[in-house]
Each structure stands twice: as C-alpha cells, then as structure tokens.
C-alpha cells in the first residue's frame, strides 16, 4: 500500500531556524561562501532537517505525534536551498512493507528533491495500534 505523498517547502529561513533550534551551526547550512569553498554547489539543508521532515510525514500518516518507534536513513545527496523566496521542495512518500500482529507498521520511505532521491535505506516502524 502506498501512503499519500507529502511535500515540504524549504527556504533559507527554515535552515536558519533549524540551525538555532537544533544547535547545528555548520556554516555549509547558511553561508554560500563557505559551502562553495568545500565543493558544494551552495548552501545545503541539514541532513537532519530532511530527516525531521520525514518524521513529520510519519506522524502525519500515523495520525499521532508519538507513533514512531524506529526511524533510520542514509543521506545520499545534498538538498541545495537557493537564496530566494521559493527555496526548494522535498517530497516524501512511503509504501507499507509489513503490518505485524503486534500492531507495528513497517515502511519504506522515499524522499526526493527535483525528482532525485536524497535518502536511501530510509525505513521506519510506526505503532499504529494503541
């Protein structure tokens, strides 16, 4: 079963807010000058911000803020966030791999930006029965 796709807009302002909230002030997430210096095309989103959006998608699908019992991802491609009002978009989708008798739902997750996958081996387990 495929779950409804969720789309998240990401702007530079979101990265600044996330840097402050998470304590991750690596300049590749806010300075084009320092991002390009290390070979990136420009400022990129925190991998953990992308993962946080996946977490949001999961709690929305589950309909409960406390449903996630396991979440793991591999960061495979940077999410470049341009310095404009539009920013970029991260699209999160998932398929149900298994529903266990104990009421756990295992998902395979896809997260893409401009049609290219930014995560691999992204899997989650949700507690769907209370």
């Amino acid at each position, binding site marked *: 079963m495929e779950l409804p796709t969720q789309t998240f807009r990401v702007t530079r302002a979101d990265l600044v807010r996330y840097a402050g909230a998470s*304590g991750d002030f690596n300049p590749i997430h806010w300075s084009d000058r320092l991002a390009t210096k290390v070979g990136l095309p420009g400022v990129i989103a925190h991998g953990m911000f992308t993962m946080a959006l996946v977490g*949001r998608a999961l*709690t929305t699908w589950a309909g409960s*803020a406390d449903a996630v019992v396991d979440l793991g991802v591999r960061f495979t491609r940077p999410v470049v966030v341009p310095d404009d009002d539009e920013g970029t978009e991260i699209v999160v989708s998932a398929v149900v791999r298994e529903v266990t008798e104990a009421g756990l739902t295992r998902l395979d997750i896809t997260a893409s930006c401009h049609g290219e996958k930014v995560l691999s081996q992204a899997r989650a387990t949700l507690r769907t029965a209370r």
Partner: protein
Amino acid sequence: MSLDHSFIGRSYPPTAPYQVGREKIREFATAIGATDPAHHDPEAARALGHPDVVAPPTFPVVLTMAANRQLIEDPALGLDYSRVVHGDQRFAYTRPVVAGDELVCVNTVEGVTSRGGHEFVTTRTDVKTTAGEPVVTAWMKLVVRGEA
C-alpha cells in the same frame, strides 16, 4: 590519516544530564513545521498518556549530536572533522522524549572501517533518564572522506 581501530567497542563516560524543556520542544517542533498539538500543548500530550509535551522523532539529535563531540574531539581517535560527512542516522525509541525528562547519553564506538579510500565510524548513543530508564538509542555513521 588513519583512525585508531582499537576504539571499536569503547564507551565514553556518561554526559552531564540534559534537562528537556517544554519551550525547547516547542521551538524544535516550530522549526520543522510540526503543528501537532501534542508537541505544543501539555493537555494534548496528556490525552495520549504522556506527562508533558512530546518531542518530534528527530529531537534527540539535539542531545546526541552534542554528546558525540566527545568522540569527534577526542584527539586519540583522530577524526579530521573538516572531512567528515554525516552518512547514516537511526533512532530506536523505547518511548518518546517528553518535557521534564532528564537525559544522559553514553557513546559507544560500534565500528571503524575503511573502504575505497574513505573511513567510516559508527557510533551508538544510549539515551536514558538519570534514573536509568532507557528512552532512545541513536546510531550515527560518519564518513571521513579520503584525501583526493
């Protein structure tokens, strides 16, 4: 540069307790656009059976990333942070983090490997309350890119 493989299996001393604040959870939830009332309103969280607001799933990174500085800054391990990329991240929860938790992290080096000129360090961070109740375990894989 080569990492010291004898670090595999080594654990670091527990970190100083981290007091999870209600406003910190609200701030983190707001930063990721998570509007579920259980992240913001203690009443909504209590309706789900929690003592206070519930942290979003990736919130523990606030603690675990800070705790991992123990390894990253350990000169004996020899990590060159300027060449480090975050490769993998996983969280396995015994229960969600909630406001009022007082949490301690214990870092363990699970793996140090080399492949294709790159080095990989896998760490496990066990997050427990100061009373010893397990809350969440985080795994992080760091990729140390080889010098081109």
